[in-house]
């Protein structure tokens, strides 16, 4: 892992109005095979991607939201959610899926993947990345 780059996927758009969210997730899943240091960020309308109870039966589109809960199995354990983006939309962490990953080093203890960060904190996280994929 020493040569691994810090890859961050930034998700800024609501899940179904455009295809960006779904095709971003496809990059994350494929990219997991490359063993980089991956994290995801959700900001602006992108926070809607993680909401619980999505139902797409009325619009004839695939509900891909269950895929987020599989990210832990792809060793994606760092999911940053911007606090201000949630607040501006009247959302709280309770409105989002509970995403977890299993820590191999601690007997597969289940840990939270979502890290709630302020806009300023997220800016620092972004500044520390090598590669930013912006969706």
């Amino acid at each position, binding site marked *: 892992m020493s040569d691994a780059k810090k890859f961050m996927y930034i998700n800024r758009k609501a899940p179904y109005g455009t295809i960006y969210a779904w*095709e971003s997730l496809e*990059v994350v899943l494929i*990219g997991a095979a490359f063993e*980089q240091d991956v994290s995801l960020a959700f900001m602006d309308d992108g926070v809607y991607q993680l909401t619980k109870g999505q139902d797409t039966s009325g619009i004839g589109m695939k509900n891909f939201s269950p895929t987020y809960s599989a990210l832990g199995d792809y060793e994606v354990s760092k999911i940053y959610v911007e606090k201000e983006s949630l607040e501006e939309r009247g959302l709280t962490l309770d409105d989002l899926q509970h995403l977890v990953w299993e820590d191999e080093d601690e007997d597969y203890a289940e840990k939270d993947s979502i890290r709630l960060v302020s806009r300023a904190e997220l800016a620092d996280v972004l500044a520390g990345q090598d590669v930013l994929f912006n969706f």
Partner: protein
Amino acid sequence: MKLTIQVNEGPYQHQSADTAYYFAKAALEKGHEIFRVFFYHDGVNNGTRLTTPPQDDRNIVNRWSELAQEHNIDMVLCVAAAQRRGIVDDGEAERNGKDTTNIAPGFRISGLGQLVEGGIQSDRLIVFGD
């Protein structure tokens, strides 16, 4: 510097296809190396040879093809995005039973791994799109 360029938007609909092209051209003129141009989302529509813009407008697709041929640039259309949007090469036509192909010269269709590899191998990944 070694660069990978990602183009997320279709031609004519969105300025990104133009700015990505001008960026690529300027970078080459300054002596930078382009490791790959990767077309994703509607960006794959930059690679259809069936485009027929009005004569007094720029031909975005031909412009990419010429750039690729002149500078030997690897230009990749994402296969999943291309399948959704009907961009077809010989391999895809055979695999999916299509009666024609429409990929423009200088482009090839491949997987998302090519984008991730671009991020790993390049000094900078530059994304054009909304």
